[in-house]
């Protein structure tokens, strides 16, 4: 979060940004090549899609929302709890016989409202995003647990499970959804006023306000997006797991922030991209996948995970910085 003065000369941010993404992409590919030789059964379309891709999908969806929030200079710790709350409400409604589509809409609305509350506390009451979402992280979790009395909801309609948990043309639907969302939110960030304002707010909120723009509205919007995407990720996850439990999603905030930051989003705000979040999520999933395939012992998994995260960032830093 230290603001470092870069005085590298260049004309177009986009080129740098692309190189930046290319940096992680390079690490991803490098990793893939190395692992293909080192790890049996790593190198296969199936493992790439169903092993790494699918497990990265959930994290990616959450990380998109977090990237938006972080770009404005905020943070959302409540994503996991929001996910759980939306999931149990959605699942409960399905169990009670509401059509799946309607239940999905309600679950997304729950996510949106959870995000809205975060956003309003940040913009209207002007509390620090960290504290607000730390508070709601606890609160929403409590709601999810009280709602189900701590029990998981087990019987989801098969139609629903197939719709969101299935696959199309060999690609799992969660992965397709994640990719579509990445594309959509990349376009929004780059090619709409809203996206531009979100970036601008992170760069210099005061200047944006002086331009006559209602910054509160856009900041709030990012929390709503984050809440809805967390809800959507939860819906995708429960379709796969076949059960919704109120403790779902714990630790999501950390993985999603990690994916975002590994992907080049700055926690200081003003800078970030959604494709990076996807690449970050893929990198983290690949790591997990390899460690599992290698059957690395629990303690050494921790050692390896830590080393590789930092190692990847160091490589990224030096390829980027010249």
């Amino acid at each position, binding site marked *: 979060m230290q603001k470092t*003065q870069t*005085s590298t*000369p*260049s*004309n*177009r*941010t986009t080129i740098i940004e692309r190189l930046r993404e290319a940096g992680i992409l390079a690490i991803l590919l490098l990793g893939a090549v190395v692992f293909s030789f080192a790890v049996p059964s790593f190198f296969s379309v199936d493992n790439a899609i169903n092993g790494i891709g699918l497990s990265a999908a959930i994290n990616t969806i959450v990380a998109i929302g977090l990237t938006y929030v972080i770009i404005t200079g905020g943070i959302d710790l409540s994503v996991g709890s929001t996910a759980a709350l939306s999931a149990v409400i959605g699942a409960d409604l399905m169990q009670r016989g509401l059509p799946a589509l309607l239940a999905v809409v309600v679950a997304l609305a729950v996510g949106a409202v959870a995000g809205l509350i975060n956003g309003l506390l940040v913009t209207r009451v002007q509390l620090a995003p960290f504290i607000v979402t730390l508070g709601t992280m606890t609160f929403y979790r409590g709601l999810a647990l009280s709602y189900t009395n701590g029990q998981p909801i087990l019987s989801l309609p098969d139609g629903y499970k197939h719709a969101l948990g299935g696959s199309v043309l060999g690609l799992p639907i969660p992965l397709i959804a994640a990719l579509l969302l990445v594309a959509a939110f990349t376009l929004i960030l*780059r*090619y*709409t*006023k*809203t996206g*531009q304002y979100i*970036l*601008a707010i*992170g*760069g*210099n909120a*005061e*200047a*944006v*306000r*002086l*331009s*006559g*723009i*209602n910054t509160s509205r856009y900041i709030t919007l990012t929390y709503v997006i984050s809440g809805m995407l967390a809800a959507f990720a939860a819906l995708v996850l429960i379709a796969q797991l076949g059960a919704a439990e109120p403790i779902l999603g714990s630790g999501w905030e950390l993985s999603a922030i990690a994916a975002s930051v590994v992907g080049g989003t700055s926690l200081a705000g*003003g*800078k970030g991209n959604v494709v990076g979040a996807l690449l970050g999520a893929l990198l983290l999933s690949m790591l997990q996948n390899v460690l599992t395939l290698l059957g690395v012992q629990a303690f050494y998994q921790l050692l390896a995970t830590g080393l590789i995260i930092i190692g990847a960032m160091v490589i990224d830093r030096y390829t980027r910085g010249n």
Partner: protein
Amino acid sequence: MTVLPVTELLSAQHINKSFSGVHVLKDVQFLLRAGEVHALLGENGAGKSTLLKTLFGIYIPDSGILAVGGQPVTMHSPKDAQTHGIAMIHQELALIPELSVAQNVLLGNEGREVLNYAQMEARVRPFLAQVGLNIAPNTPVKRLTIAQQQMVEIARAVARQARIIIMDEPTSSLTTHEIEQLYVVVRELTASGVGIIYVSHHFDEIEALADRVTVLRDGNYIGTVDQKDVTQDQLVTMMVGRELAAQGTFVERTPGAVRLDVRGLNRNGVFEDISLQVHAGEVVTLAGLIGAGRTEVLRAIYGADPITSGQIELDGQPVPRPSPAVMMLRGVGFIAEDRRQQGIVPDAKVSVNMMLTSWAKGLVSVREADMRRSVEPQMQALGIRPANPNQTIRRLSGGNQQKVILGRWLAAGCGVLLIDEPTRGIDVASKADIYTLVDELARQGVAVLMVSSELPEVLRLSDRILVMREGRLAGELSRAQASEERILALATGAQTHAKDSNVHAV
């Protein structure tokens, strides 16, 4: 001038504004007419920016009446001001570094939700051309020099197509060349009926542009006069409340040994082959146009940016790995051109801001009493107001902030002083003080290397002038040779083939 019907664009009456009991604007009035340039004059801290901010809806006055086009209005936010056709160029730059020039110019004004960059860039191009900015509209603002950023701000105000444009020190980081350009823009605007409120500490600008002048002193309204009816001295008297001694002239100095010796300094793509020497008791200036690379050279000498090759010697001793910390300890001081990003620690007290370097040198402790002994004389010498070392520096006026940064190095003391735009945003009265200060430093044997875009200042202070163009040294002018025309000629390259025999080309 032909007689036009006088239309009132914007008026303010009986404006009062206090910050925590400090009365900053006291019953101030102001009236802007269509098609005029109305200059607002006053010393640093007189309340100019505060008045302008109330006119733009950033501050809500404690009392008073605002009217636009004769209709009373209340403005609660910049948005309100914009709907009344007001645009503002802020004293402290308000651009978004990560966004492109086009995006910044059109911010809040883009039109449809889905952005069409090609169209946005096309829309912006004429405005960039109008302000004489020759850069691609898709360049990110963070890649621009401060001066270029300033021009982007001006382009932005123009692009708003407002009826009233407020300019708070728009020229404080511009060189003569761009200032001329700004004149053209301002005249075009006023000709079409736009009213402009103009704040500057430069009387030549006031003379060239202003129709009327309003003067504030200590938050009081002193008066409004027609510019052509008054002399500069009269204006200064209105501002300061007393007659002011002249700014002084250059005093001959006898430079001593070489203190700073820079040889073959290179930084790929930014500057090339810079060699220069500054002697003890000498003031050397780097002159040039925007983007000539002066700032970059100064920063590189101080070790703030990496270099690709070259060597720096201090008092005959090489500096193997220059960095700000190393240079500071070896007696080099540095004042950056971008006060807000690189100068002040905004939420810290004035005393802390001033003592940063002295602490590191072990000159003062952090005990309040100890600091006060060091801080107060500097505040007095520099005329910093309010004279309260415990004030948060963010709440000081721009000029006073600049003085605090100067004070930082004066308090710490140094053998070599690198200053980028020493009097940015400083009022006439204080400017004279600062010139005297630099003279005094030189007399004490300090080697001063400065970057300045104000030619009168360059001529007032320098023993020698090095002119840069496009990252290279284009020539050197001695005191005797120097004139505004020659500096400009070297800076623009207009006479490179004419081989003026008086100019020692490097």
